[in-house]
């Protein structure tokens, strides 16, 4: 069980809470306290809107341990409208084929369980096709 490692990231995972750089106004996700653009300290919390577009995507058919029940599933790199890109599963795709550039929105979903069925549930961001265009 890895309870603390999931717990300490809950804000990022549940709600895309990142940072904004007070020096250059860049939005940062995941938070890293140092602005990757200007190198200055950046600790101001900033919550991303969750809106973005698919930069690229793939389908996982052989899953790492803990993800087997979900195969096949789509993982994308999503370019958030604030600038940062995030790696996340796409969910609720329906019959619509995924395309690069497709608008998506963040939803909080069950990512996995920590270890076996005795473990805690890990929730986090996924993205789905925008329900409202």
């Amino acid at each position, binding site marked *: 069980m890895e309870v603390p490692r999931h717990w300490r990231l809950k804000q990022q995972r549940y709600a895309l809470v990142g940072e904004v750089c007070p020096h250059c106004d860049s939005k940062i996700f995941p938070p890293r306290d140092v602005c990757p653009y200007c190198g200055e300290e950046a600790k101001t919390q900033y919550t991303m809107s969750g809106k973005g577009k698919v930069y690229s995507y793939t389908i996982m058919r052989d899953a790492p341990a803990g993800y087997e029940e979900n195969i096949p599933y789509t993982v994308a790199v999503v370019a958030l409208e604030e600038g940062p890109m995030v790696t996340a599963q796409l969910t609720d795709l*329906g019959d619509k084929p995924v395309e690069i550039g497709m608008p998506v929105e963040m939803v909080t979903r069950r990512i996995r369980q920590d270890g076996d069925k005795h473990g805690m549930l890990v929730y986090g961001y996924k993205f789905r096709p925008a329900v*409202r265009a």
Partner: protein
Amino acid sequence: MTTETTNDPSKLLLKTDRKIGIIGYGAYVPRYRIPGEDISMVWTGHKTGSPVKEKSVAGIDEDVITMSIEAARNAIARAGIDPCELRAVWVGSESHPYAVKPSGTVVAEAIGASASIQSGDWEFACKAGTEAMVAAIALTGSGMGRYAMAIGMDTAQGKPADALEYTAASGGAAFIIGPAEEAVVEIEASYSFVSDTPDFWRRAEMKYPEHGQRFTGEPAYFKHIEGAARIMLDGMKRSPSDYTYGVFHQPNPKFPQRVAATLGFTPEQIKDGLLSPDIGNTYAGSAMIGLTAILDIAKPGDRILMVSYGSGAGSDAFSLVVTDKIAARRELATSTAEYIARRTQIDYGTYLRYRGNISME
């Protein structure tokens, strides 16, 4: 032992010192549907066994917590408040993902609520969500806090081949209760009516509920909904015709139609809140999501009578009046109808998989 009685039903109604109402609401229905006739084919060999056209099914990565988060975000969007102003985030459900560990704290963190909240979970079968609403009404109506969120949400499970398998569905709604001057719906009064009636239950370690067959109707559903509704109508000195809409717990299409007729509501009054033919019985979410569907179309001044029902057993009745703030607010989040229209049909095997009914061990 004496039983307190009163001849004046108005004295039984729960009313707040400060006028309060629903200031934001949000629905959620997962996108997967399994047709009733598919379930019927599996267990009877013919297509005609189901009381509903289809039911909504949560996706493989969804549960009461994730669904509550989405409904809560919709409610926040419509309320237009800072989530930090909430003083309670309450989730009512009979399918909380954890037996011990609150759903509410996860929902609260996800929507950005503060640490200064009440967040215990509620359980009262299908009326867990409306029970939380009454608590939220009390918390805000007393002035203890300005805003409180109550959610009714379920990923209900029916035992395979059981009658409940046709209807046990996933979905629900979230309401933020707050001052009447900010409300899209003013809450005039509530009233709750309960008794020890074992019509449906699930023991602590069991996966599927048990139920008392026909016992679930007369001494359970009808007695409690009628009991609660009549006290509300009498107490408010109103008749069904004073209400534009009636919405009742909907374990299937028939029960709410029959109880509406018994009480004197017309089919026209209940049709917009009757979602069970299309999504099944969302348990703790059932009456509440019926209400969100009505709020999506209601006009200022419309009166709504909502009565939930939870096995075990009891009903909560609410008398509501729509305010002129409704039109602008309803556009701020996805409507109930949009969620219902967002539909992907799945087969029985996929349904079993999504609901965790295929053993991988």
